[in-house]
């Protein structure tokens, strides 16, 4: 196990973790403040990725495509909020699960109808396609570095929004005690709409940025949705701070585990057993982590509600 490999895996984990954070941030705020379990959050990620891919192909520019895709995804999310989701806010969690699951099915099928069952191609901008030599003997794909930079910038912007602005103050108040925030004059209806739009923008950004690395295809939202839920319960529902820490933990543990555990196992117990047990243990790792966190800290590492 070389230091280079460790460094590379850490960067990969950081990159994945930051993208998970973009998804988890919206999910945790919607859950924490609007008290809505939104299974369709992964669908916004998928639709965002498709819109970015289409807009990029049409305009020939990745940046333009990204901007158009995000705008389109936000519009879609606002329409969804105004027509359906608004009716689910007051309902119990199980109704919300069924309702948003129905939306998830409809989104998947609509995407399959419009774009077909085959994955859609989305490639990274040519200027970022090569590797960058970070230090002698270690180069890293420029596009992945760009993802890390974008993720850090968005995380920073979110923290400024949450910690330094009036809207952020209302959001924090809403996450901590929604009824009290409403009594104190926070315009909850407007806040919910804004919040949902913001969540959709972050989803589309993550979908567009990850599109060139992963396949843009139907069902891409579901697996990442479960990971995003893992992140927000580890971090504590409603807490942006927790979402960032949770996302980085999950991203790094998952990525590093997949590479390092098989190597580790091979040294300890031989190649045969390691090839069978290694990948399984690596996949189980984040769930063990979540179970342990929930067992000792049922409200997550950074609980938002007072």
């Amino acid at each position: 196990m070389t230091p280079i490999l460790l460094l590379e895996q850490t960067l990969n984990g950081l990159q994945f973790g930051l993208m998970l954070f973009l998804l988890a941030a919206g999910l945790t705020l919607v859950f924490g403040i609007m008290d809505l379990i939104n299974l369709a959050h992964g669908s916004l990620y998928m639709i965002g990725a498709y819109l970015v891919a289409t807009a990029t192909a049409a305009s020939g520019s990745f940046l333009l495509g990204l901007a158009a895709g995000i705008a389109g995804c936000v519009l879609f999310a606002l329409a969804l909020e105004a027509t359906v989701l608004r009716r689910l806010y007051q309902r119990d969690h199980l109704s919300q699960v069924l309702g948003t699951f129905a939306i998830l099915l409809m989104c998947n099928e609509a995407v399959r109808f419009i774009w077909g069952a085959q994955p859609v191609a989305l490639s990274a901008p040519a200027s970022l396609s090569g590797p960058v030599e970070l230090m002698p003997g270690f180069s890293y794909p420029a596009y992945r570095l760009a993802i890390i930079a974008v993720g850090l910038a968005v995380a920073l912007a979110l923290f400024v929004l949450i910690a330094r602005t009036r809207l952020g103050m209302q959001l924090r108040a809403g996450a901590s005690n929604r009824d009290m925030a409403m009594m104190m004059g926070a315009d909850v209806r407007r806040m919910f709409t804004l919040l949902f739009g913001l969540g959709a923008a972050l989803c589309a950004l993550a979908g567009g940025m990850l599109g060139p690395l992963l396949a843009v295809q139907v069902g891409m939202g579901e697996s990442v949705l479960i990971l995003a839920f893992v992140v927000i319960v580890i971090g504590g529902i409603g807490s942006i701070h927790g979402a960032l820490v949770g996302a980085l933990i999950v991203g790094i543990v998952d990525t590093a585990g997949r590479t390092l555990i098989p190597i580790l196992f091979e040294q300890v117990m031989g190649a045969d057993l390691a090839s069978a047990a290694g990948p399984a243990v690596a996949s189980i790792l984040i769930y063990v982590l979540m179970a342990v966190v929930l067992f000792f800290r049922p409200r997550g590492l950074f609980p938002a509600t007072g």
Partner: protein
Amino acid sequence: MDSKTTSPSATDDAPANPAGPLDHPLRWQVGVPLLAALVMFPFAANALDGAFYVSLASRILILAIAATSLNLILGFGGMVSFGHAAFLGVGAYTVAILMQAGLTSAVLSFPLAVLLSAAAAAAIGAISLRTRGVSFIMITLAFAQMLYFLAVSLKTYGGDDGLSLAGRSTLPGGLSLAGDTPFYFACLAVSAMVFVAVHRLVNSRFGHALQAIRENETRMEAIGFPVFRLKLTAFVIAGALAGLAGALTANHASFVSPSMMQWSQSGMLMIMVILGGVGYLWGGVVGALVFLVLEEILSHYTIHWQFFLGAALLAVVLAAPNGLMSLLHRRPR
């Protein structure tokens, strides 16, 4: 309601006056004609050249068992388990692995499947039930995912690709499950027994205590009920019944794979229960029936059936807040 659940004179059976809010009567006017219709069904289907529908009906009955077992903890116990498919998986893999080893007798494999899934539920429940709310949902998901990846890593038993069974389990005394119709009757017998058992359980003193815990856990604790033990018992029973459904599933498809324990399967069971009616005796059965029949009909007409299935589910959520059964009778939840 309180006086009934706490009074020491409450008997194990449904009380003489069956109108209490915790009682869920099973009317013979509904049960007997339904059972008769289900017994006649394969003959009618075979006569009308619809043998395929016998297999579909078996699948619906099996999932009705699974959904009813989930409804026992989700609907009556208020425990939103997001890992129920794992217990089906344990039951199915038990049957498959025994069969791989040459042990095909259902007399051996079915009880063992039930036992092992009960043991898995006991272990998972003992840890998970120390949390509540969303934490409970996610911790049950975590354990189910662990079992899922464990199944993926079982390379001797097919790993990711799953395992085909040589045939169906064998019964003593020359009975065979091989044909679709005999297998249907086995499923019908098992599901009818499970349904009646769950009905008795829900209306028993234990079931009343369970429903009271759903309504107010702290109060039940204060009154002196062993809340954790009651919840764990319900969780283990539900896991065992799911294991039974899993053993039937393995026989139905003659195939097991890790995908049957994936979270999306747990989600589907949950969707069925919510669709049918959380905390209604018939909720699991109606949910499984409507979900699978809708799926079957819609997929006949269009390859984009999932869209219309979604639309139908959404319509149910908006029109019937507490599931389809709530349209039939109002019961305070």
